[in-house]
């Protein structure tokens, strides 16, 4: 097992190196440079050259790449031009906010999606099934950013029950309750599409299971219908629902970008969008490499966990 983990960790090195090269090349190739973005109207060639020298961007590109890579290996991701603070501080803070949002959304969509799917399947073609199917299709069809804006209009502007944006109130304490109030709308808006997808797939997985012999046996021996559905059938259906949850987790994480912009959530998606527009090279590069490293690590953990649980996967 230790050997397998080591092998997987070693195989991550070329992947991360490749990502560093690609993100560096992209930032080097896109038109516009940070000095021009910073100077705006005053970006005369002379001023740009002077500022580039101050920013260390006057060296040859390959040299810049190796300096950046070398510093990164020592844990120094550099300083953001646009925010004037260490890239790593900013990335960690922002990534935490994204995890809070995407994590809550993921829990919401998993629970709501499975419940809706199970109820649908248990009442196939009944009014509950039709109602849920209608709502679910509606949810899948509404773009999340649009839904988010509508929610702001209704709950923040008209009813004034929830704050319109941000993660924390600007004055007062930081506690779980105020966080939940700020989380409610973005997390819900972000989870709607994923909830729909999970509900649809949970429904078909459940229908398949409900037709099987062991369900009939359970009913025949007198198990309460609720027990049949929730205990026997759902447990069997989970085998095909769990992979869908995995895919939706990725979807929720990437979908967070729009929601973060609409709700001004201080997450990493919004950070990258802003950084790209400002040509904040080091922040973009550092952010992308960090997120990529997290994905790679997450995959390794999943693979290792799976190989531990499932003897059919050779280590």
């Amino acid at each position, binding site marked *: 097992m230790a050997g397998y983990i080591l092998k997987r960790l070693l195989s991550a090195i070329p992947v991360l190196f490749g990502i560093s090269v690609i993100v560096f090349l992209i930032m080097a190739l896109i038109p*516009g440079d940070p000095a021009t973005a910073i*100077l*705006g109207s005053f970006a005369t060639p002379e001023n740009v050259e002077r500022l580039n020298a101050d920013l260390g961007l006057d060296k040859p590109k390959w040299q810049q790449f190796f300096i950046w890579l070398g510093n990164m290996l020592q844990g120094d991701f550099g300083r953001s031009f646009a925010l*004037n603070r260490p890239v790593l501080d900013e990335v960690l803070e922002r990534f935490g906010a994204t995890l809070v949002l995407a994590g809550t959304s993921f829990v919401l969509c998993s629970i709501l999606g499975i419940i809706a799917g199970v109820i649908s399947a*248990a009442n196939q073609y009944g009014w*509950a099934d039709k109602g849920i199917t209608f709502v679910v299709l509606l949810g899948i069809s509404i773009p999340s950013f649009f839904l988010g804006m509508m929610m702001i209009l209704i709950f923040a502007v008209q009813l004034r029950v929830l704050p319109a944006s941000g993660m924390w109130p600007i*004055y007062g304490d930081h506690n779980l309750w105020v966080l939940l109030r700020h989380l409610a709308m973005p997390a819900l808006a972000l989870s709607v599409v994923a909830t729909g997808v999970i509900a649809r797939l949970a429904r078909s997985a459940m229908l398949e299971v409900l037709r099987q012999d062991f369900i009939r046996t359970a009913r025949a021996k007198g198990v309460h219908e*609720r027990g049949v559905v929730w205990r026997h059938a759902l447990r069997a259906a989970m085998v095909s629902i769990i992979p869908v949850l995995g895919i939706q987790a990725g979807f929720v994480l990437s979908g967070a970008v729009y929601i973060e912009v609409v709700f001004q959530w201080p997450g990493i998606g919004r950070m990258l969008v*802003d950084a790209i527009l400002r040509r904040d090279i080091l922040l973009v590069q550092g952010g992308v490499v960090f997120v990529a490293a997290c994905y790679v690590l997450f995959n390794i953990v999943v693979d290792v966990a799976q190989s531990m649980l499932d003897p059919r996967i050779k280590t």
Partner: protein
Amino acid sequence: MGLLTWTRRAVLGGAAALALGLPAAAQTPPGVLVVGQVAEPQALDPHAVTAVNDFRILMNVYDGLVRYASGTLEVEPALATDWEISDDGTVYTFNLRDGVSFHDGTPFNAEAVVFNFERMLNEDHPYHDTGPFPLSFFFSAVESVEALDDLTVQFTLSSPYAPFLSNLAYPTGLIVSPQAVMDNGQDFGRNPSGTGAFRFVEWRSNEAVVVERNPDYWDGAPELEAVVFRPITDANTRVAEMLSGGIDLMVEVPPVALSEFQGDAFNVVEQAGPHVWFLILNMREGPFTEQAVRQAANYAINKEALVNDVLEGTAAVAAGPTPPAFAWAYNEDLDPYPYDPDRARELLAEAGMEAPEVTFYVTEGGSGMLDPVAMGTAIQADLEAVGFDVTIETYEWNTFLGRVNPGLEGEADMAEMAWMTNDPDTLPYLTLRTEAMPDNGGFNSGYYSNPEVDALLEEARTATDQDTRAALYREMQTIVQEDAPWVFVANWVQNAVTSDRVENFALEPSFFLLLDDVVKN
């Protein structure tokens, strides 16, 4: 069926919990002004930043030696009480205000002023590495800064440079506490200390910058207890926060959202600023080499419709290259080119141009660009109506600058552009002189060249008498309007919205946000 009753009960219970559990959104407390900003600030070091968004905070935390008098773009004393300019215009001697301290308690004096400018301008200064200082070229004419005594400081310029005082009033000329720079080094931008009406309390990344009342402010302590600057980058969300009471003041209201704020609960404030929105015309090749064709374009475009319909009144029609906000240097006799498509057709016919083909660079956004895509398409329609054949090419802002700034030759015949400046010298000096063509490091991307204009601008820059300068700028404006190297389109009228709890708020022509007189109930 047991399943369904269970869910119905759960839903009802959940709804009840929500209704009971959520109090109405809290109102912002009295005495604390919450300002909706357009972005997270870069730093609170006035010498290190370039964005108006950052200046809005900085102008309340720091003072300069001079400042713009309220409602104008003319300088008046601030940390300097008075000054003398030598006859040749190269030596400026300032007498400094006595008894002023920085927020960190250290005294403001001549040595502090010297430290500030040395840090920016002298590469060997021990704290020069706390930069970079992108706008330090504002003071590139400064040869030396000396403290004559504790409260007298003398600047020596390498040559006469009339915009010097006006540049001192710009945020790049604000004075920071030397002690705070020494203590914090690179992190000074997050631990600012100045002499201004408000002193820095905290900066919570991506949430808020908080400043509080400076009770010892030399110009009278402000009315507000504190100001909170919140970055809200999305314009729709900013509007929603304003409507829901989450902020008390928002700047740069999108034109389409202005109608939301009619009524008693809000006040809309407007102020024309030193901004020009124009089209650069390529005078080196293509149809716009002919003056008649350039004038035709000026006649053909319905500027009234652009500012009233596309921009919903958030801009005014521009007459020439200098915005009216520079009241002292603006030529009142100049009338904008009227909207006259027939005259445009005549001019095109006179020039013997039939359906001149025009490539038009349009940007998707960018600072001061207002609503560039909608404006670009309206302009295209107007030009086609009189016989031009216009092809639009659209680029993202930084890409756009990368294509336009090196010059339009071989690229396009026409490009959108906008500038916001602090002195009437800056824009024409950088964009309309023969010497300012892109190959010489200027922004004259359309290759306009008129020796008369060159001479006027050089002379205006070295004349220290304001009336003399004004006369020179006025003459320049008349010539440039006639030559029509640009299509003069609009001057941005900056707007802001406050809730009805905010009083005494006004916008400044400089586009800075000054909050020391504002009251919030």
